């Protein structure tokens, strides 16, 4: 198990490096370098003196080859936790992002639990009662869930909530609780708001997982070992849960690997629509005004945390599936 862990972590390293390079490429994509933008921005406020300019130029390695700049940037992050400056807010990026990243991942993880709680029983039901009315209903829901883009669903739900329930949606807590300490009432209020992004982000994932669980289980349901279990005299429910479901669960859990990235993606776009205090709106704004260090840092950390989440799910999987562990 320990060797497995080491190997998985080792495999992660190139991914991490690649992510950081791609991120830095994105930072570099807009024309002009960072200092030009900064200088242009600050010139209205009296400009920067040439000494500071030089110091900054040195710090970021501007004007030097790509990899030198990359090296300075990445070592700054790794060694000092310095993500650069957000020129729009004129604050270190590190001061701005953690809250928002926290919320993004909190919502993504809650969504993950939500879609599992939904997809598992429905998927099992659909496979066992193949071609029943319930199966068709689940399949239909699945297709709809996959066909409606997240942001569209968010808009529709907000419209319905406003039009028919008179509820104004947006944000994670009501305005009066924004700066309030975390009391019981605030949690209740949070819950009243947060279910909607969770449902919206989760729908397409749940739809996909239902289909995956159904297909996995259908693959297993007619295997010889199920017949063996039946021939032992187990009841259908008992054998279903102990054998095929147990086996089908593994590929199901391994979907974290790609479901987590899509949830994070979905959360970001839904957050823009619902105006949640998470990564989405901040990233979009940063990109639109080309506040590239902020945008780059957000992309980098979101991606890295996702990769980490995938790693954890792989380890969990190895823990429950002996076949993987012993490889």
């Amino acid at each position, binding site marked *: 198990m320990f060797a497995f862990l080491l190997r998985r972590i080792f*495999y992660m390293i*190139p*991914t991490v490096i*690649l*992510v950081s390079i*791609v*991120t830095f490429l*994105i930072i570099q*994509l*807009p*024309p002009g370098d960072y200092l030009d933008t900064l200088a242009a921005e600050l010139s209205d406020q009296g400009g920067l003196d040439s000494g500071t300019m030089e110091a900054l130029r040195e710090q970021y390695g501007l004007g030097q080859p790509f990899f030198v700049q990359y090296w300075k940037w990445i070592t700054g992050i790794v060694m000092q936790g310095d993500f650069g400056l957000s020129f729009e807010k004129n604050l270190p990026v590190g001061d701005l992002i953690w809250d928002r990243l926290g919320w993004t991942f909190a919502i993504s993880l809650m969504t993950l639990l939500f879609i599992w709680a939904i997809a598992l029983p429905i998927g099992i039901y659909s496979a066992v009662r193949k071609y029943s009315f319930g199966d068709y209903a689940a399949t239909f829901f699945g*297709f*709809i869930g*996959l*066909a*409606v*883009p*997240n*942001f*569209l669903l968010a*808009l*529709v739900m*907000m*419209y319905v909530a*406003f*039009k028919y329930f008179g509820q*104004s*949606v*947006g944000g994670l807590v009501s305005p009066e609780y924004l700066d309030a300490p975390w009391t019981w009432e605030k949690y209740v209020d949070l819950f009243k708001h947060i279910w909607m992004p969770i449902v919206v982000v989760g729908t397409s994932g749940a739809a996909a997982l239902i289909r995956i669980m159904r297909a996995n289980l259908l693959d297993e349901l007619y295997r010889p070992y199920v017949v063996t279990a039946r021939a032992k005299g187990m009841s259908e429910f008992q054998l279903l849960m102990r054998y095929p479901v147990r086996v089908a669960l593994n590929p199901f859990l391994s979907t974290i*690997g*790609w479901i987590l*990235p*899509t949830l*994070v*993606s*979905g959360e*970001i*776009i839904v957050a*823009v*629509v619902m105006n949640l205090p998470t*990564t989405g709106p901040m*990233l*979009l704004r940063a*990109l*639109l005004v*080309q506040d590239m260090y902020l*945008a*780059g840092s*957000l*992309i980098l950390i*979101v*991606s890295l945390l*996702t*990769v980490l989440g*995938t790693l954890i799910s792989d380890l969990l999987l190895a823990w429950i599936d002996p076949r993987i562990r012993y490889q």
Partner: protein
Amino acid sequence: MTLTDTSPVSDNSKDTNLVPELLGPWSLIWRKFKRHRLAYFSLWFVGFIYLMALFGEFLTTQDINETNRRAPFAPPMSVQLFTNDESGTSQFLLHARGLKLELNEEERRRTFVEDPDKIIPLGFFVEGYDYKLLGLIPLNTHLFGAKNPRDRVYFFGADRLGRDIYSRIVMGTRVSMSIGLVGVALSMVIGISLGGISGYYGGWIDNIIQRLIEFIRSIPTIPLWMGLAAAIPLGWPPLRTYFVVTVIVSMIGWTSLAREVRGKFLSLRKEDFVTAARLDGLTDWEVIRRHMVPSFSSHIIASLTLAVPLMILAETSLSFLGIGLQPPTVSWGTLLKEAQNIRTIIQAPWLLIAPGTMIVMAVLALNFLGDGLRDAADPNAH
């Protein structure tokens, strides 16, 4: 007893070949596909949408860029078959009910109400704005619309500038549906070549390509897309933006295809007929093209069909956020961008409903189609 296989076949073995008639692989797939009714219907629907994309102008009722200061956020007009004249007798006349602005006392703002005096007769093959059919044939006939070219009809309502949503959706079809196709074509080229190389040669090449795929799949796509798309300068010509957005969108789609192709190659590599072809002295490329590709092309077609809706959704999302296609390019995504905030939606729900429905229907149909194809192509499915 003579029981060798050279013994003459006696009379009684005549009816051993009562075996059901065998069909070729493609006709088998087609037969199975047709049994999948929803998929079969979706095939027609998708065909219809692509025709709509092709002959867009002919189907529109108004020029999509023409604004109308008197109809901002005009609601959809109702279409009726009969008119009632003063005497109360009804008469057959296909027409739309005109709108007029009226001051709403309660809300203290002007809203549209139906104008009973304004009847806009509708007809087929009516005269309208000039366009070139398929970019070649100059025409001004439109399939249907107001009989009087000066009348404006809004079947699905109007947007902020009084432009006709119906016509804009029809024209948006061209951009959105073609991004799906072009993106899939790109994905196909990348996916099949990388997947094929990976599966055919194996070894370290395979390893690198697999790592690359894992990498792309393990990072969230939306922020990455956003980062790339945001770098497209706003001043670029629409066609170039269109192309770059397509490339960005297809950068993700190829991975699943590559995996599938690789898997197929890996299993086919060991098949006897491939070995036999190699022993016959065919080159790698010939083996791939003549023997391997035909044996899984049905699967590829199914996966490609399933990739199209993903691309469409991706384009829509990016354009909706304002970092994909930019106005004046009209796509379903840029149309939805008009419905970005809740206040607009409440004032003019059709801005959300009309393009939204269109997207969902197109994606649904493509998904059904792809699913049906995949089931039909899978020899083991029952």
